[in-house]
Every structure is written in C-alpha cells, then in structure tokens.
C-alpha cells in the first residue's frame, strides 16, 4: 500500500497542474493577510486606549442590534451579538485584546479554505478519470494488486494532497502574518464565543478546532467528486458537478427550506460549527443528527466509487 500511495503522489506531483494549484494556494495564503488585517491605525490596542476603543465599538453594536433589519436576520444578529459579548468579556475581565498578528491571521485564514476544497475536488476528480483518459488504466489494472487496493491508494492520495495543501497554507499564512502584521507570541490567547458563552482560549487550539470543522466539508466534497469521477470516468463532469454543488449548496438549502426533508440534504449538515458558534440551520437538529447524515452520505459515496471501480469491465475506449 505504501508503494501504491507513493506512486500516486509521484504521478500527482509530476504534473504541472498540481504545482500551479499549490502556487495559487500559496499566493492566497500570502497576500490574503491584506484582506483580513484590520487597518492598523484604527485598532492598535495599547494599554492606554483599548478600553475606549472597545466601548466605542460596543455602542455602535448596541445600536445595530436594535435595528429591526438586524433582528430580522437571525444569523447576522447572532454574529453581531457575539462580537459584543467578546468585547464585554475583555472589558469585564480587564484583559487587553491581542493586536493582530501571525496566529490570528492563520485563524482567520480558515475563510480561504474553500480554495483548498476546490483544489482537492480537482485532484479527486482527476485521479481516477485521468487514468482512463490517458489509457494508462489498462497497464495499471493488470498488476497483481486488487482493484480495491488501487482505489484505496488513490483515495488516500487525495486526502494526503489535502493535508499537504493545508500544512503549506498554514505555514505560509503564519509567515505572511508575521511579516505584515507581526508575531503575536508563541501561544497567544483570545476570547471567543463558543457553545453559547465567551471563553478565553489559546489561538492554536482554536485553529485546530476551526480548521477541523472546515475540513469536514472538504472531505465530503472531495469524496463526492471522487465517486462521481469513478462512476462516469470523466473528470470535467465530476469537477463541474462538485464545484457547482459546493458553491450552490447553501442556496439550495435556502430554496428548499420549507420542505420537511430539507434537513437531510448534505449541505445542511456539512457546517458543523452551526452547533458550536452559530444557530442550527434547521430547528431541532443536533450535532449527532448531522454526523449521522454525513456518515450515511460518506458511505454512499464510498460504495458507489468502490462498486463502479471494482465491478465494471475496462472496455475499449
């Protein structure tokens, strides 16, 4: 199995398109810091001024929260309210908030993870279909290795690619953050709103938790693309469908909101943070419910992929 994964990685990283994708990811991680970094003059907390800055901010938020328009949108309301609670926490406990720095940028960088999902979908969609396109599938499947093992090695390679991409992204993001925003310590702490209350927590722990949640979506979409690509043996189709669904997923949910079965749709369950920081999309769903739904989808994707790869003939092109 080790040799098979090594083969897949070799094939993946000898293709120029893989490098183009990773370079895009690195550029995003590097320059993204200018998008998330607050204007330095506006909020540079010092011992003298941080209280007034936060108080002023919260006055603004209070006004916003009373606005009927804000109250109409529950998600937005929650979001604004959480900012308020976090500020209150700093003031009440007399802790100066951290100035923006490398670790905070890495944490904010989770917002760019859909790009990594996209790249992983492209890799997942191609890793089987391309063998058919190149014709090399015939030489690959006449070895003394079961098709199940070959398929598994390809799937593991996709996940490995995602991990490599993720590590690269985080490292570059930290470096960019350190250069443009400064280093905010070895293990800095911030106040965050989670599970209905504000906690003072290490950013690094937050990074792993938040990225972990985001990866659920990545793994589900990559597995979906992988299954479609083995089923139809066509990478363009698999990329198209997967990216469309990834982009349109939340709109689909809004569109079908009223249906009683809408909560069983994959995209209603891929964002598990709805149970920790936000409001569940559907009332009455729980973390356990979503995990069960995700597992059912996952098993379906894997079985579809496995059946179509191992049971079908490799006929002429």
């Amino acid at each position: 199995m080790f040799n098979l994964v090594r083969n897949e990685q070799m094939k993946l990283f000898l293709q120029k398109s893989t490098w183009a994708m990773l370079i895009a990811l690195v550029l995003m991680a590097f320059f993204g810091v200018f998008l998330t970094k607050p204007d330095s003059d506006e909020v540079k907390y010092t011992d003298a001024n941080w209280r007034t800055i936060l108080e002023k901010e919260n006055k603004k938020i209070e006004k916003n929260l009373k606005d009927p328009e804000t109250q109409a949108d529950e998600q937005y309301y929650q979001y604004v309210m959480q900012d308020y609670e976090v500020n209150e926490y700093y003031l009440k406990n007399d802790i100066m908030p951290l100035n923006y720095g490398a670790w905070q940028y890495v944490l904010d960088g989770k917002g760019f993870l859909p790009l990594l999902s996209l790249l992983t979908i492209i890799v997942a969609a191609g890793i089987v279909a391309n063998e058919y396109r190149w014709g090399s599938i015939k030489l690959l499947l006449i070895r003394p290795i079961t098709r199940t093992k070959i398929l598994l090695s390809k799937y593991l390679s996709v996940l490995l690619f995602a991990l490599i991409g993720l590590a690269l992204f985080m490292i570059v993001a930290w470096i960019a953050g350190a250069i443009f925003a400064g280093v905010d310590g070895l293990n800095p702490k911030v106040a965050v709103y989670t599970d209905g209350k504000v906690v003072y927590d290490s950013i690094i722990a937050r990074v792993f938790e938040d990225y972990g949640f985001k990866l659920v979506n990545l793994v589900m979409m990559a597995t979906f693309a992988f299954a479609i690509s083995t089923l139809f043996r066509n990478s363009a189709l698999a990329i198209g469908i997967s990216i469309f669904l990834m982009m349109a997923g939340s709109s689909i949910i809004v569109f079908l909101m009223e249906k009683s079965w809408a909560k069983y749709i994959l995209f209603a369950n891929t964002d598990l943070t709805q149970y920790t920081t936000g409001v569940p999309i559907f009332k009455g769903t729980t973390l356990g419910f979503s995990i069960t739904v995700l597992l059912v989808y996952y098993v379906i994707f894997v079985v579809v992929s496995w059946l179509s790869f191992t049971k079908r003939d490799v006929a002429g092109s």
Partner: protein
Amino acid sequence: MTENAMELVDVRKSIGSKEIIKGLTFSIKKGEVFGFIGPNGAGKTTTIRMMVGLMKLSSGEIRIDGKSIVSEYKDAARKIGAIVENPELYPFMTGWQNLVHFARMNKGVTNERIKEVVELVGLEKAVKEKVGKYSLGMRQRIGIAQALLHRPSVLILDEPTNGLDPTGIREMRQHIRKLAEEENVAVIISSHLLSEIELMCDRVGMIQNGKMVAVQSVRDAEKPDTPALQDVILEAQPIEKSRSLLYAHSKIEAKAEGDLLRFQCEKDKIPELVAYLAGENIAIYQVGAGKATLEEKFFDLMGENTIV
C-alpha cells in the same frame, strides 16, 4: 505442473444480451509464440482483456500457469506481462519514472532489473526523456519494457510492431523469438499484419465472430504437405505452350496466373523440367518455390467478405 502457460476453457463473454465470445478453448505452451488473428470486431481484444483481467468472463475459465485469472487473480496476474492495444503510459513522466512506477507494483523488481530491461529494448538514451515526446516506436519499446519487468511467464502483445520502422520490426521479432526460446516465455501476439505473424509465430489461431475457426502450426504450413511435392512458380513464354509441354512431359497440371504458371511437382524433378522446357525453345525468366501464404489461408478460412 502442466506445460501449458495459458489455457482457455470454453470462455464466453456476453455484453447485454449479445454474446461476443462464443466458447473459446485453446492453450498456449511454454516457449511458444502464438499468433492471434482475425478481422476487426472478431473478439481479439475482448479475449485479451479477459486474459489479463480487465474484463470479466461470463463463463468459462482462463488459467495462467495453472492459476485461474478469476479465482486466483493475484497469482495469475503476477505471471502476465502485457500491452493491451496501444502502449499508453504516463506522458508527463520520463520513461524511467514510468518503469519505476510499474516496478513498484510487483514484488522483487530491482533497479538493476529495470536497467537490464531498458537495455534489452534499446532505450538507454531516451529513458530520461518524457514519454510524451516519444515516437510511436519508442512508446512500443517502453511498453514492452514495462511488460517484461517482472519476468512474466506469459507475454501478451497487441500489435507489437505497430509504428516501428523496418529495423525496429526485425529487432522486435528477434527479441520475441529470443524470449520464447531462451527464457521459455509464452508469447501471445495479436496482429492484423499476417506476414508479421507468419515470420514470428509458431502457431496461429484465427478467430471470427467470437469463435476460433482454426488453430494451426505456421512452420508446418510453410513445409509442403507431403515432403515429395513442391509448389513451383514458373515465368515462361509463351505461356500456353509451356503449359501443354508440362502436361505432355509428366502429366503436370499447371495453373496460369497472369504471366506465371503455378504447379506442384517433386523437387528433384525441377531441373529436368527446366532443361526440357529450355530445349523446346521456351524462354524461362524465373523459377521459384511457391508456398501458400498465411494470407491465402486466412482468406480461405474467413472468406473474402468477412468484415461485416
């Protein structure tokens, strides 16, 4: 152990309700070069795909060195090296990287072995270049190299001389014969070039409409049916006079084909006949030994209009 490298027993394949392989039974001995011919759509490629496990058998059995490709896939596949249709390797990798890739999928293929195979197919220079830049002939060679890496006991080659220049074809022929004779490898070659098959193979199987219509030894076909009689081709003028003279001299019935006469006689008698004809003022331009080519046999068996 059996001396058959590959055995097919009543192999059938249906796609949908259509049966495309209708019960193939034949075997290939160790060290034998077996030619597999037939018109397009006869089922050659389907049969080869079943031999290597790319397609499943609807019924029947294929054994490689006694191991079933159906129930003992891994043991059977270990003994096969193959090119199925075109040798399609990874175009963005070098020849060497491609070989390393396939070597890793078999146990015990060392770097030395890869080097050995590269030398065998004569790709020492090109092996560092990307396969995408290879000519068809080089691709054919790298295809054969990947098939030989793990020292298979059965080598299956689909159109192996496709795209090779005349020198390449000769080398390929020598390689294949050498593998069969020295390493006791059974080689299965499918081709539409009948003359190629004739030069390379020991036996030929002709397949038509999913059935084996004939299996015969090539070497035997080249020899006269009875040792005494020889096919003779004679170019002589005037042709009609020659024909009647031959009949008058020793009751030989010659067929006129354009400027040529074709007949059979004992080999020892040829000089005598030539001298006799010359004595009768017949202008003799050439005398040659004729033989029924595989192509003629092919069309005899298949009929002229086989491609439906």
